[in-house]
């Protein structure tokens, strides 16, 4: 075995870098170096200074911010792709490429776009940014950055806001580019933005310090699945929204958001609803609680059908059926204090509790959720994201519910808050045998805290299995892509999710699916049993791994 090669010289290096604004030190004594063909990820919570650090590395500081310390930049271009991937609104894509590359030749622009898997690239060069979908817009912004042929590319929250499967694939393509061309790539973002996935090395920026991230504690996982009869049974639930039509007539159409979903939840059990945005998981979560009207099917709570009940009867059951929503701050009335709103909920749900006891229970619930006592007197705007999420937990758990339906409750949180609240949730589940329905787009969270996982696509369940089975032997390509995205891998699902009103015929995944064959367009697959408790809706679920790879080869991917 030969001696290890000496490491190449770093392309971009910073030593003792400090960033000051007028009133605060944002980053202190940061040192980093990226070598050719290296991918570095910098993670950090909101407002940690990630964007400013990238701008300092690129030498593009805003007014009023001072930088100390040295940054060694390579000869050649250092390109910064700012947050949101902005494109110039009044120029076509082609014009923007011409500006970057210095030639009006379209051929190279098309190559760059195709490299980032933009379909019909030549046609899109004549479009303006507002005519592109979000996914294509991000691809175009990344392609423009690559077309500048940088030696170092600094990408700030690249592709954030896209679905995890799409984002993970784009980040993997970026990393491929860096490794092939020997450029250096720095990805900055939240941990939830998946920037760590394709990275060779990870740094965390927190409280102004840049350091390798602390070794995280054992992640929270659900306990063993409880047995017992179901408390909640959903049968063939269907939710639709009317479109068009109205008072003065007109052609009406219907958007089917949830189509024939059935599942059971036992006491103390967690069922995770996993899916991309637009898969119907939020609508399903709300329809279970009768916050949206169901168009068909049954939702049986302890044997009583919630969909068939009157509004007032459902209201009397709500103390047992509580909800957590995404954007916790927006779920509180901005004009009233947190304490008043938790008390209001308690008064409505448990009117038998008297005033003094109620106040004690509010304080207890807030303290239990990990909020300081002063938080009760604050309005929502005075809380951090983490505190607002805790306030949401306090309000939902104060009436001692038996079922908690969570719709992406942790989506806006930093990694630490997220783990804290998951632990809190599971603690309550064990203590009170709380049943949980947990909707998320994060396959990792779904499989860690769910006992069973339902994978949703275009309003239908495409795979359902115990969490352990799903992580080991997922059969649907869509499930595999979601798992790959959560694990930092490369999801094997092409393109962007189709818009809800223009779903392809047959299988909803077929336009993106590596296994798709002609038959997939003819008939939508039904759930078939793989093994007891594991069902999948894919015509070719039993295509084994080898055959699948061959199919991919044929498709010329």
């Amino acid at each position, binding site marked *: 075995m030969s001696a290890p090669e000496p490491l190449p010289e770093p392309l971009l290096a910073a030593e003792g870098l400090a960033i000051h604004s007028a009133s605060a030190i944002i980053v202190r004594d940061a040192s980093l170096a990226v070598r050719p063909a290296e991918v570095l990820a910098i993670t950090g919570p909101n407002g940690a200074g990630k964007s400013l650090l990238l701008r300092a590395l690129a030498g593009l500081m805003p007014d009023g911010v001072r930088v100390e310390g040295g940054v060694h930049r390579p000869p050649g271009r250092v390109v910064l792709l700012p947050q949101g991937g902005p494109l110039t609104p009044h120029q076509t894509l082609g014009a923007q490429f011409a500006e970057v590359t210095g030639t009006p030749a379209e051929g190279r622009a098309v190559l760059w776009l195709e490299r980032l898997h933009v379909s019909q690239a030549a046609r899109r060069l004549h479009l303006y940014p507002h005519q592109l979908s979000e996914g294509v817009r991000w691809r175009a912004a990344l392609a423009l950055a690559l077309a500048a042929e940088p030696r170092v590319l600094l990408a700030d929250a690249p592709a954030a806001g896209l679905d995890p499967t799409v984002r993970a694939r784009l980040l993997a393509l970026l990393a491929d580019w860096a490794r092939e061309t020997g450029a250096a790539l720095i990805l900055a973002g939240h941990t939830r933005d998946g920037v760590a996935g394709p990275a060779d090395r990870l740094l965390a920026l927190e409280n102004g310090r840049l350091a390798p991230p602390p070794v995280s504690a054992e992640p929270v996982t659900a306990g063993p699945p409880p047995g017992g009869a179901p408390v909640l049974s959903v049968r063939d639930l269907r939710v639709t929204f009317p479109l*068009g*039509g*109205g*008072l*003065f*007539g*007109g052609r009406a159409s219907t958007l089917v958001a949830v189509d024939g979903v059935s599942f059971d939840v036992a006491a103390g059990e967690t069922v995770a609803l996993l899916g991309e945005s637009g898969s119907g998981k939020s609508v399903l979560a*709300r329809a279970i*609680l009768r*916050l949206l009207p169901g168009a068909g099917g049954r939702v049986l709570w302890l044997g009583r059908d919630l969909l068939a009940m009157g*509004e007032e009867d459902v*209201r009397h059951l*709500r*103390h047992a059926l*509580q*909800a957590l*929503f*995404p*954007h916790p*701050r*927006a*779920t*509180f*009335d*901005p*004009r*009233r*204090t947190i304490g008043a*709103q938790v008390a*209001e*909920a308690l008064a*409505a*749900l448990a009117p038998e509790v008297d005033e003094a006891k109620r106040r004690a229970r509010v304080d207890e619930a807030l303290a239990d959720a990990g909020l300081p006592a002063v938080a009760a007197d*604050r*309005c929502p*705007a*005075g809380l951090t994201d983490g505190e607002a999420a805790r306030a*949401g937990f306090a*309000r939902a758990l104060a*009436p001692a519910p038996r079922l908690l339906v969570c719709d992406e409750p942790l989506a806006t949180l930093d990694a630490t808050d997220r783990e804290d609240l998951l632990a809190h949730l599971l603690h309550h589940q064990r203590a009170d045998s709380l049943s949980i329905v947990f909707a998320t787009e994060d396959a990792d969270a779904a499989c860690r805290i769910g006992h069973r996982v339902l994978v949703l696509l275009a309003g239908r369940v495409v795979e359902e299995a115990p969490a352990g089975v799903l992580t080991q032997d997922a059969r649907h390509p869509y499930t595999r892509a979601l798992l790959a995205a959560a694990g930092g891998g490369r999801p094997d699902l092409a393109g962007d999710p189709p818009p809800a009103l223009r779903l392809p015929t047959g299988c909803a995944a077929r336009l993106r699916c590596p296994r798709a064959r002609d038959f997939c367009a003819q008939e939508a697959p039904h759930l078939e049993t793989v093994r007891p408790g594991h069902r999948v809706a894919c015509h070719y679920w039993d295509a084994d791994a080898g055959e699948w790879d061959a199919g991919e080869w044929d498709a010329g991917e």
Partner: protein
Amino acid sequence: MDAGRFDPTTDTPAQAARRRFAAHRPAVHGVGALAVLTVLGFVEPLLAGPFATDPIVRALDAGHTTLALALVGGTLAAIVGAGWGVLAVTIGGRAERRLTALAQGLAALPLALLPVLAGGLLGRGVDLLILAVAAAAAPAAALATRTTLRARARREYAMAARAAGLTPAMVLWRHTIPNLAGPLLAAVWPVLPRALAVESFAGVVGLGAPAPVDTWGTLIGGALTAPFGAGLLAPALLLAAALAALNAVGDGVAASFPEERP
């Protein structure tokens, strides 16, 4: 603390709105100017005896009438317009598009001519003038109401409150209406300067309030025919000041209720 700075840890939203209004200098000056105009109207009778025909005294005398007409007409327009907008958003769908298109079409017409037409065709009268002024200002208020409701009404807190066991009526009265009141006030406020301008225009062309009633508009209209435009300056300046003050206060109200981000 800095007057305009909103400190969410200590301020309630109502305090923050007051603080933002106080920090809006033109709006504070506008309130002052309107207060001065109102008070001068009360002082004027003391001067009326010896100087009753002086143009300045007559203009001050007309101030109360003018502002009262604008206030009544504007309030009527605000009620009709807000009702129109709320109705459109509540029904939704195609009916909302039709109602909005109607308001847009009307707002595009030169509605300032409405009181003039009414005065010319149906005869002059204070009641008719108020109705015509209100009709001229209402479509714009309807559009502003609908835009505000669309931007702010679909908030998660209403759904969360229902999940927390509140009845729809409780959600409406305790959460939705208090949260929309401020932004709606800001949205419909421009009807007041609009009503004042429309009413004054009718007065200037001689089809405003009938004879014994003086408004700034009718005074300006009368002065135009007088030799050298005698008596034009006082009502014109007061009208300009009142319009500027009303618009400035409107800006301040709008600044008090910025679009909040969740």
